[in-house]
């Protein structure tokens, strides 16, 4: 396993955040985003009037307990789900105005995904899985870039293996590579370390962050794990479908404190360094 020279000892000791105002260089943002399921008495409000923006070139985490609406928020931001009301923009493109086919086309070109589980198609080998979105778009990845990504992720000797021949951590790394290859506007990661042991998890998180640092990739990660959240530059807290907090460069302890405060009914904020 070969990693580049860069490796972060602990996330909290590094603090760097691109200073940019949210609206002009927001990679993805939402306005009045609402999502309800069901009808009448059985209706459930997953998101209620959420206004949020995610900066370019930043690693942002969306945090909350189960049922807070964090996954729903990510799905709506990524164009995987349509909100009941409100708007979502990816850069200058309004996602909520697009039809399914356009959304799908947009997803394959401008958004990357890393899911918690079932990331890869069992029928394809690692290499084929990696290039799948680009193939669907009908384009081929830049060979040099692909080489670099494979090298960075240490997958050179795993390219011809099928997912059932790879470990959980290796599968996630293939997923990360897949997300990186088309150099998308945003990479959405939904609990990427949820199924991994702590060491593989740390690997994947480190990779995500290094992509942000080295290539200016925007990453938005949904997680419930405070340690994972501490890898991010900014943590957005959700509770009951509403924004309930905004932390910048938090440590794991900061996050835990903020969560506890939420439970006690308050909101938590902390300034940046």
């Amino acid at each position, binding site marked *: 396993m070969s990693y580049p020279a860069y490796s972060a000892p602990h996330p909290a000791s590094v603090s760097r955040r691109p200073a940019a105002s949210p609206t002009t260089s927001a990679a993805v943002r939402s306005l009045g985003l609402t999502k309800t399921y069901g009808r009448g008495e059985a209706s459930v409000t997953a998101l209620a009037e959420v206004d949020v923006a995610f900066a370019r070139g930043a690693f942002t985490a969306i945090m909350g307990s189960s049922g807070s609406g964090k996954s729903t928020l990510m799905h709506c931001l990524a164009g995987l789900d349509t909100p009941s009301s409100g708007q979502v923009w990816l850069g200058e493109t309004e996602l909520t105005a697009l039809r399914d086919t356009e959304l799908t*086309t947009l997803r394959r070109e401008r958004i990357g995904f890393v*899911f918690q589980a079932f990331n890869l*198609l*069992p*029928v394809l080998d690692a290499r084929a899985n990696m290039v799948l979105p680009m193939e*669907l778009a009908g384009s081929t990845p830049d060979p040099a870039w692909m080489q670099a990504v494979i090298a960075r992720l240490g997958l050179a000797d795993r390219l011809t293996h099928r997912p059932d021949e790879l470990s959980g951590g290796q599968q996630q790394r293939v997923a990360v590579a897949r997300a990186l290859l088309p150099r998308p506007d945003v990479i959405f990661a939904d609990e990427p370390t949820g199924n991994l042991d702590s060491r593989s998890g740390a690997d994947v998180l480190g990779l995500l962050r290094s992509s942000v640092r080295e290539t200016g990739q925007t990453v938005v990660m949904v997680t419930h794990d405070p340690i994972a959240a501490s890898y991010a530059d900014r943590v957005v807290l959700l509770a009951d479908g509403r924004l309930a907090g905004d932390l910048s460069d938090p440590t794991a302890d900061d996050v835990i404190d903020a969560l506890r405060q939420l439970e006690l009914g308050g909101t938590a904020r902390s300034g940046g360094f």
Partner: protein
Amino acid sequence: MWKITLAQVRAHAGRLIASCLAIVIAVGFVVATLVLNETASASIARAVGAQYVDTDAVVLPDRTGGPLGPSNDVSTGPSLNELAPRIAEVDGVAAIAADTEAFAQALVPGRSGSQYVTVDSIPDEEALRWMRLSDGALPDAVGEVAVSARVGARVGDTISVTTYPSASPGGPVTEGTPEAVTDEVTVVGVVDLSGDPTAGLRGRFFATPQQVAAWGGADPTQLRVAATDGTDAATLVGALRAVLAEAGSSAIVRTGAEQAAEQVATLTGDNLALATFLLVFGAIAVFVAGLVIANTFAVLLAQRTRELALLRCIGATARQVRRGVLVEAAITGLAASALGVGIGIALAALVSALAAGVESPIPLGGLSVPPYAVATGLAVGTLVTVLSALAPSKAATRVAPLAALRPMDNAPLRSRRGLVRLVLGLGLLLPGLALTALGVAIGGILVALPGGMLSTLGALLLLQRAIPPVVALAGRLIGGLGGVPARLAAGNATRNPRRTAATATALLIGVTLTTALLVGAASTRATVAADLDRSYPTDVIVRSFSEPMPAALAEQLRAVDRVEQATALVRTNATGPDGTPSEVLGIDVAQARSTVRAAQDELPGPGQVTVNTDLAQQWGLAEGDPVTFSTDGSAVELSAHLVDGYDLLMSPEDVLSLDPAAGFGQIWLRLSDDLDAEASAKAIDEITDLASQAVPSIDITGLISVRQAINSILDTLLLVVTGLLGIAVVIALIGVGNTLALSVIERRQENGLMRALGLTRGQLRGLLAWEALLVAGVAAVLGVMAGSFYGLAGTAAILGETGEVILDFPFLQVLAVVVVATGAGVLASVLPARRATRTSPVAAMMT
């Protein structure tokens, strides 16, 4: 468990309907086949043996010879007339009828040409009268007749009837012209002969025994006996046989039913073949229905593995779960089978009604529902459903509950189960193929059929191993064409052999069956046609008794509409090797070749005379032996050529050398091809008219009508078979739809992931369509290959014992099957694809 079972039934009504549908249709198919079998057999027996059905015992003289050639009475002992009083005294005999027959020429007002009719006597005893009237009444005095519909006369018409009471055809040839007697008779009734395939051959008259005797029919041809109440037919036959043996008679006694069966056998050539054919088809129906139910049900149950595992997690024991599944299967199976039985009977009734409307030669008159059909339908449906629920229920309970809740893993082929399948599959396939080959070699369908079934089962088991490489190969071909969706489709199809094989199996069964029947039917038709042409090579034979026919008659007959060719044969009497006079005929072979339809080797070569094989045996001749015929003054020695026909044929020169004054004795006519029954009847009437004007004592034999009758029987059978085929195909399609739907559900997460990554809805539909196309295409091609093999083997096995088999391969029809099957497979993927694309990616992945 009960409540859970019921709740599940209610919740999954849709899925249950799908599985019920397969059972209902499959059982309906089986029951319809069996009922139609029985109805057809009963109808044929009833129609053809109409006169024997109500008769308890029949006494017949011992006869040799073919049904259409001269038959010789070789019985010994007292004549039937003498036996009648003795039989009347036997205990248990209620009434006797001595059936007599005569032959006459009838001129019906308003019809062109006279007809040659047979006249049957009407018994005095009511109990033995079998004639059904469609108009008027039966005659009770001399000068009255009842006619069959073929005659074309109405009640009240007066018909002029010419008979030769002093001569009877088939007997010894007399010198000089037999004396003709012409009477006028009144038609008093029309007899309903509908359902008798021979009714169209020639007209029939029915008259009192006195009238028949006046026309030359004095000696009874058979005695029909009615038993007293309480005497059963078999006992009566036994008693009669005793009496006859005592009297030193070699006459034959049979029960009415046996004689009816004999009649059917004579008509269809081989009773066993007909019964076997229908039995075979019934067996195939059961087999196919069983396979498809098993396939469909297993697939549907596999969906519920997780549900069942969940039940186990919350506390149901393995046995409770298994029992619940089996009970559910039994109830579903029984209910659906009952419905299927009802539908099958209804379907058979519909087919029977349609056949009656179309005036088929075998009317499926009424409906004959044998209890075994109902029992078989219920048994097959319920049993197969329960059996097919066994394996999935065991599978669900064998795995630890939590493990079963995780996403399904693909069973690797190298597992122990895979090995068992391989061994079992080969163990069934190879012996099955050997049996089939044996059946073909010896011409025994009852050997080949089990062989076919075994090999099918074996092949289906091996399908899991065979399909992936074939699909992979085909996948590589389409991969280049269809882009990413096609390549993904190819990968999907090869990855899960079990699922691919299940989808392919459903379609394979339907395609194999269809192809086998198409190929079998085509080959059967070709073989039967050739056989008929060989057996009845001449359409019409015009024969005079002893008076020579004018030379111009042949040309006159040739000029008749729809007559294509005419050949005249010279005739004389010569003494054969046994010292008795025989009729010999001279035929111009070159001319005859264009007149006869086949059987070129039935004609004599130069220096040869054709001798019937039985006659040759009598004369002690082998093929090629010299045989001499002589008349006063000359003799000729020829080489014997053994044939099936009954005439002694030689060259015209040889006949003329025996008798320079020989005149024409027969004219062979060939009619246009593809004439229907009515057209050929008209042609024969015209021929009769012309010929009888020239020579009154003429005998016209319309062999073409016999051939047509047999052809229509075959057509009707094949029609019924093809109709039932459609049902088999529908079942197959349901199976395909089910397995495709299941595969879509199994891959929800994958499909959701791909949608998330950027596969558009259209591309997803394309992917599923490609997959369906791939699997359906492979299944269709494999099915067509297997079906062709079984069809040809089946035909060879069935017809092998009757002679040479001609194999005909209907290329166009088979190609159509491949196209339709593949298209149907793709079509079956439309609904599942819609469901897949309508689910949002997120919902799909979160399953």
